[in-house]
């Protein structure tokens, strides 16, 4: 059953077609990687799927609901309720501790629960660093806090834009293992990456070029 369906969407900035008539179908529980050269429209697509931007043309169906024409307020609600975001620059609120950063996500979603937030940090192996400020954490640790923050509200869909772009091998593996766990739990994952290793961890890879879907590769070696 389709969780997400892009139907012929385009995003046009003046002359530039950042996305050009793209269609995509992602099933519930699927793990999809998106690759492509710089400027090919990956982030533009993620913004549209993540309810932070609207396509110039086309339809975006999330859980069967067309979100491409909803007002900003409704988009915020959907983003909050259904989507977990992970970014390349592991954005954190600089003056809040690791656990507080996770709780911010709970705060906007429903109710802050420190215990639950600590458990989520435990899941990414950072239970001991819960009271540390971002400046006291390494980049890899910060990204793991962001993963904990993304999964705390049990979103149906996790969108990650180059989650391992700034990480070393060890941290990359930790994050990939977390993704595998989430996948096993039934969470749908869409991961933008430049790294073929990260792409190979997914079930399927979409390659974008000049705002179009150039090809689609199914990962034969995918281990459930």
């Amino acid at each position, binding site marked *: 059953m389709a969780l997400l369906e892009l139907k012929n969407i385009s995003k046009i900035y003046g002359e530039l077609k950042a996305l050009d008539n793209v269609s995509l179908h992602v099933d519930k529980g699927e793990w999809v990687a998106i690759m492509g050269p710089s400027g090919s429209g990956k982030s533009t697509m993620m913004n549209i799927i993540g309810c932070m931007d609207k396509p110039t043309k086309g339809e975006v169906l999330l859980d069967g609901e067309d979100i491409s024409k909803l007002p900003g307020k409704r988009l*915020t*609600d959907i983003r909050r309720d259904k989507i977990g975001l992970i970014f390349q620059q592991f*954005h954190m609120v600089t003056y809040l501790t690791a656990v*507080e950063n996770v*709780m911010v996500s709970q705060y906007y979603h429903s109710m802050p629960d420190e215990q639950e937030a600590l458990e989520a940090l435990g899941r990414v192996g950072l239970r001991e660093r819960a009271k540390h400020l971002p400046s006291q954490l390494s980049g890899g640790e910060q990204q793991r806090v962001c993963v904990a923050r993304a999964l705390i509200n049990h979103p149906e869909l996790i969108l990650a834009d180059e989650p391992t772009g700034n990480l070393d091998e060890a941290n990359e593996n930790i994050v990939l293992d977390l993704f595998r766990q989430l996948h096993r739990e039934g969470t749908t994952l869409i991961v933008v990456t430049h790294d073929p290793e990260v792409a190979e961890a997914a079930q399927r890879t979409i390659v974008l070029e000049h705002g179009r879907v150039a090809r689609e590769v199914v990962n034969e070696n995918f281990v459930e």
Partner: protein
Amino acid sequence: MTKRRMFLRMVTASLLRRRSRMLIALLSIGIGATILAGMVTIYYDVPRQMRAQMRSYGANMLLMPAEGETLDSERLSAALQKLPADALVGASPYRYVRLDMTSRQQSFTTAGTDFAEIQKTSPYFSVEGRYPEAPREILVGREIAETIGVKEGSDMELTWQPTARESDGNPSDDRKPGARLAGSAKGFGDAMVYVTATLDNEAKIAELTIDASTQTPEYGGRTAEDALFLKQFIGKALPLEMGDDVDALSGATVTSTAVVEALNTARADAAVQPKTTRYMVTGILVTGGEEEGYVFMSTEDLQALTGEDALDVAELSISADEEQLNAYAEALTGDGVQARLVKRVTKSETAVLGKLQALVFLVTVVVLILTMICVSTTMMAVVSERRREIGLRKALGASDNSIRGEFLGEGMFLGLLGGALGAVLGFVFAQVVSVNVFHASIMFRPLLLPVTVLVSMLIAAASCLMPIKRAVAIDPAIVLKGE
């Protein structure tokens, strides 16, 4: 954990862990609140302070005998009892009489008063020398001092000449056989001529003494010695007609007429005998006003001289606003006295205070606007500094109202801290201003603390409106861009 606790945790963390920037906002609110609290304190305290100062411009109320009544020291002190002690700055009694300086053939308006009170009601009086302290010490107005050439330390002999007018009844009642009559009348140069006469068994003049020492010795002065002139009066009944009963002494018509007038108005009363006392001048009074033409002595000295306890008016200096003064005047009127405001003084006092308050108000408003601009600018900088964080919060699902609430919360928290700080510092500020400018300390108003805090919070909130607008407009998509 509740949402509210998380909200407070985020707001306080933002303020406490991002100290440097917030300190600037806090400082500007704090300074604004300080000036606000200080100015409000001064605004309400200025009238109290200034009113006391303004009392140096002289009395603002007059107490007079009511129609057909007389005022004396007893009635005055009874009336003053009706005023609250802390409102009454001073009350100067005045009794005005004409006293003669026989040696100079002059007479002066002399005021009997209380020198201690005068210094309170008319602090602008200046004395070359000193105020009288002992009995029989007097002040002389500059104008008089210049005309007759008296100086600090000079002696002055003054004579009280009771006039017939002031006694009860008619002079003819006193013209009984064997009576001793005394009288006076204005002679040459308005100087007094005194007569005493003894009547015989038929109530005709048996003996006559004339005191014309104030008159020119070669002319009017001779009336006292000229035997022929004096002889004309003996054996005649009063009243006398000039030219009919007696002839004027040649070259002394005015004095002769005064002698006849003095005899015709002469009275038998023993108390109406002229009385002379020697006084010491302790100072020359300089006021720039009509007081310079007066002689001032203590009420007691004047009573000793005239033998009567009577007052013409009392000047009161009261520390109160116009409305209150009117109320006091109403309360004082009655029991034989009436009170009335010195409008000129009260009006200008009210006007000056009004202007001062308007000035303080204006300064306060300007300071508040400046504070708002300063806080607003700081918050604006805070918003651009936190663009990414705001974008992140939005990406995490923060609604526009959440963003508004968080910034407003931070602003109000700053207002709370700055306001509390300002209320305390403001009181210190007002105290310093008051002590240096008004030479008086200020009352602490407990209400000032919550009011300052509240106003500071409102101002902080108002200052956040523009920055909040900008924060709400931030696009969550920026977090996905590698800025």
